[in-house]
């Protein structure tokens, strides 16, 4: 099981700013190891976020997103106490979902 994400969501007016730090190697698949062999691609391909279970964001990521990626987005209509859930899926089929409450 992959390391947990750090999610913080702060409400301001009728919007909430969500900041997510994900733990992932994000290997591009273009790097070569010391022996000259290609290090296989291993990176997040899909990111989704929900607000109280309703989808609010979906993204397709590729190899150009850096290691331990940081994602920030603003959600309209979120208020303190709401639940934000973020899910990522990578090219090896691994997945991780973490939750946070809007502050």
């Amino acid at each position, binding site marked *: 099981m992959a*390391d947990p994400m*750090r999610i913080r969501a702060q409400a301001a007016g009728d919007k909430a700013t969500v900041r997510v730090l994900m733990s992932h190697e994000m290997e591009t698949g273009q790097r070569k190891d010391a022996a000259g062999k290609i290090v296989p691609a291993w990176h997040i391909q899909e990111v989704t976020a929900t607000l109280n279970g309703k989808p609010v964001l979906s993204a397709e990521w590729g190899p150009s997103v850096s290691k*331990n990626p940081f994602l920030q987005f603003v959600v309209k209509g979120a208020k303190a106490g709401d639940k934000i859930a973020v899910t990522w899926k990578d090219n090896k089929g691994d997945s991780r979902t973490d939750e946070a409450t809007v502050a």
Partner: protein
Amino acid sequence: MSLAKLTMQKTLSLALTFALCAGAAAPALAQKTTSQGIDEYRAMLADGNPSELFEAKGEDLWKKARGPKNATLEKCDLGQGPGVVKGVFVTLPRYFADTQRMQDLESRLVTCMETLQGLNGAEIAKTPFGKGEQSNVTALATWIASESKGLKFNLPQAHTQEKTFYEVGKRLFYQRGGTHDFACASCHGEEGKRIRLQDLPVLSQNPGDGVGFAAWPAYRVSNGQMWSMQLRLNDCYRQQRFPYPGFGSNATIALSTYLGVNAKGSVSVAPALKR
């Protein structure tokens, strides 16, 4: 929903641009502007410091029962009593009566992992940085440092060994050696100098808040690694073309004592973010 997507895309493309441009300075800018540009880039990176991932891991390890003794580290004494974590980072290295020696944060963590959890301290010391239990030590050190964030350095200098190690550390700081005759002072001994485009803090005196000893552990964006103070010293010595300083060795602890005492009164920003 569309607003979220738009902002997200903007943030993503921004993130992409900076991820792709990591470390590259725009060649067309004048010298001063290049420096400013790099500062701005670093300030932008500061939000969402991946150190937090290691903080979380470290806190988890502190509270998890592990090792042959199946115990947590919650009784570990880092200098202010068993289990006290807040405020200890800015008082290390210091003298410990139970081991009768000077210890920095990392060597003290290994002592606790050995005595409380039954793990093999010598094996941990031999493990390369970033691997196995050594990466756990780094995560623990990152969390413990975060529990002193914003506090001022105040290493004790009461015990004879604390004073002695300061003096030994000073001598190490000025010790020229290796194929290049480098000492720490070669780079960190004069005001206003930089190596390539990296500004160099003067460490023979108090370099100010959040600088030098007050800025490690830190997450290094360029290689995506979490670096503890032991690793920072280790890699300095490597680039000085010195031989290998043992993990948690007295030389590294004495040097840390010198740097830490010099930083007295300066605010710790660890765990920080570096290029």
